[in-house]
């Protein structure tokens, strides 16, 4: 299946816009993605391993929260989209360098 990576996260996925993975459900697809690009993991998951509240995942045009979340079954022809919140160019609250401190 195809996973669409949004612009802000492409820097952690070799700048790719879409990634093909083989998976049976949404959780497996995201695991396959983060195994391939480990830097993406902390952007998608909390330390406790839960999907972050500000990252929405859509299977085709439907929010997985309203399907069966990460256990939602997927087909090879499906599209999975990661949709994070974005806010303009100038945003003081989201500097990546804070991760260092």
């Amino acid at each position, binding site marked *: 299946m195809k996973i669409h990576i*949004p*612009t*802000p996260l492409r*820097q952690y996925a070799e700048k790719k*816009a879409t990634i093909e993975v083989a998976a049976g459900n949404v959780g497996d697809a995201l695991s396959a993605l983060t195994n391939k690009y480990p830097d993406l993991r*902390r*952007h998608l998951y909390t330390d406790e391993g839960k999907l*972050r*509240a*500000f990252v*929405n995942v*859509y299977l085709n*045009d*439907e*929010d997985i929260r*309203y399907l069966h979340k990460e256990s939602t079954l997927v087909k090879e022809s499906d599209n999975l*989209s990661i*949709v*994070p*919140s*974005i*806010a*303009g*160019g*100038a*945003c*003081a*609250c*989201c*500097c*990546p*360098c*804070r*991760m*260092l*401190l």
Partner: protein
Amino acid sequence: MAMATVTQPDIQSANLSNDEVLRYSRHLIMPEVGMEGQLRLKAARVLCIGAGGLGSPLALYLAAAGVGTLGVVDFDVVDYTNLQRQVIHTTADVGRKKLASAAEKVKAINPFIQLQPFETRLTSENALQIFRDFDIIVDGTDNFPTRYLVNDACVLSGKPNVYGSIFRFEGQVSVFATKEGPCYRCLYPEPPPPGLVPSCAEGGVLGILPGLVGVMQATEAIKLILGKGEPLVGRLLLVDALGMRFRELKLRKNPDCPACGQHPTVTKLIDYNEFCGIRGEEKAVASNVPEIQPEELKARLDAGEDIFILDVREPHEYQICNLQGYLIPLGELPKRASELDSSREIVAHCRSGVRSAKAVSFLQQAGFRKVKNLAGGILAWSDKVDPSVPKY
């Protein structure tokens, strides 16, 4: 798709002069607008938050279309870096208040409309008061705290929030907080913690994108006023200008939404900077690390002292201008700190001094003792030492 509920404007008392009939003739002769629609537009009161990238096309088109009362909230001043996308402002406006500049253009386009300027930052204290006299709120802001503030104030005051957001060459558009539809918090209950979304330094925006997204917001506002068509309620439109692809996602009203759900926990406006994790940290970091002034660095380099210049910006920024420093982007510093010699004196710099302050703080924690931040970054270097270095 249920129509969004907008306060019915009082069109009984409105009428058009002959000059207005001529001006709006291309609206009047189409059945979707007609005289009734144009009177609705004239009676409508729309508030634009921000007179920047999104606010420029919004204000221009809403004014041209004949939206009778147009409020604009902005406290900023026009600068040169705005001109690439904020088309309501001209080169001659640099240094002026954006509000004054925008008001002048709006009035020049359509002297028949009432412009209500609010020269202030939208805050939890003033938002509900400002929103009170408007029917539709259009969010043209560029930061998370104001986005949550606008959303919550729209939910609390029962007014639709025409939402648009941009990043580089990607945009999102929707209509939130209608009675039947979801709000921004149904989509994003909480903001990203500091550090997980790219920064201003890595941000940037394709100049035409706010034009594209702002015009879509203006279209939605006008549809809400006319009560025509299918508004973007319950739908999130994703715009990829690079691929020129438009995708649409379904949004649902979340029954557990903290703002508009069945048991809301947001019952009044809160401190949105705190909510988004901003507490003047930037300045605190900058002032806590050892600094060197540009003039002192220049003098010491001229004297032939051995100082290692570390540039923590991104490679594409290095191409704009540089001090011939050694480039390690801040995000790569943890992995690449071993490339640095801790026995040498290091001066770190970035564009303005914020990122390099973090680099200095990080290096100190990693055991570097002789490391300083170039105060004010390459901008201050250009101002105080070498004006041939371009500012960006």
